[in-house]
């Protein structure tokens, strides 16, 4: 089961967990990203590339399902304006055993960070600023390719970042 959503509305964790658990397997790992409440941001705005976003998230989820034989992969990403403490992103991976669920969950969020066309703008007081991409995100995503021996894919990403 794959569920992808790019939405303006708040992310309902209980509803998403019910979806993840309905797959009947033994292990669910999740990751939730929040607007940090501790660094002075008043509003966070998420822009995305409609169409391309959904296609990318679907590809990421399908990759996780294929690699870890997941019974469920869920990616929910919020767009538009949001406030400190609110959820930006939720991913879940459901598998028979915890090793697969935990690894797949890390994979989904690492890939999403580098592959999905979202852009964050933070407003602190009167100052609005686009968030810069972090090198660490590409390192995190790259480790999945190194382990794959998927050199073609790795090369593609290096080219894209060069």
């Amino acid at each position, binding site marked *: 089961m794959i569920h992808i959503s790019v939405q303006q509305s708040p992310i309902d964790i209980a509803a998403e967990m019910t979806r993840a658990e309905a797959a009947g397997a033994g292990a669910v790992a999740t990751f939730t*990203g929040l607007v940090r409440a501790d660094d002075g941001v008043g509003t966070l705005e*998420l*822009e*995305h*590339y409609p*169409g*391309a976003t959904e*296609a990318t998230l679907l590809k990421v989820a399908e990759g996780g399902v294929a690699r870890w034989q997941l019974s469920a992969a869920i990616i929910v*990403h919020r767009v538009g304006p949001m406030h400190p403490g609110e959820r*930006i*992103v939720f991913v879940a991976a459901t598998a028979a055993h915890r090793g697969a669920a935990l690894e797949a969950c890390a994979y989904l*969020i690492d890939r*999403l*960070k*580098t*592959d*999905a*066309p*979202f*852009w*964050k*703008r933070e407003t602190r007081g009167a100052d609005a600023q*686009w*968030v*810069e*991409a*972090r090198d660490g995100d590409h390192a995190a995503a790259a480790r999945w390719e190194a382990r794959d021996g998927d050199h073609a894919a790795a090369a*593609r990403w290096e*080219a*894209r*970042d*060069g």
Partner: protein
Amino acid sequence: MAKIRMVYFAWVRERIGTGEEMVEPPASVVTVGDLVDWLAETSSGHAEAFENRSRLRAAIDQDFVPLDTPIGRAQEIAIFPPVTGG
């Protein structure tokens, strides 16, 4: 060459002043990089948006590609900063 729908996001969109436009580049424009060079001449906003090539990413018909990719028969080309989702 056929018309191409350009789409822009984040600060690329803000600097150019629009999220999309139709363009008709000359035959000398082969790659996405050539297209960016050509567009940079069309307004000061484009020039400012495309100032630093290493900070630009691109997609052809919603597939992410390096800037040296040939445009081919692209219908939609997106130019944007590195992504920062999640």
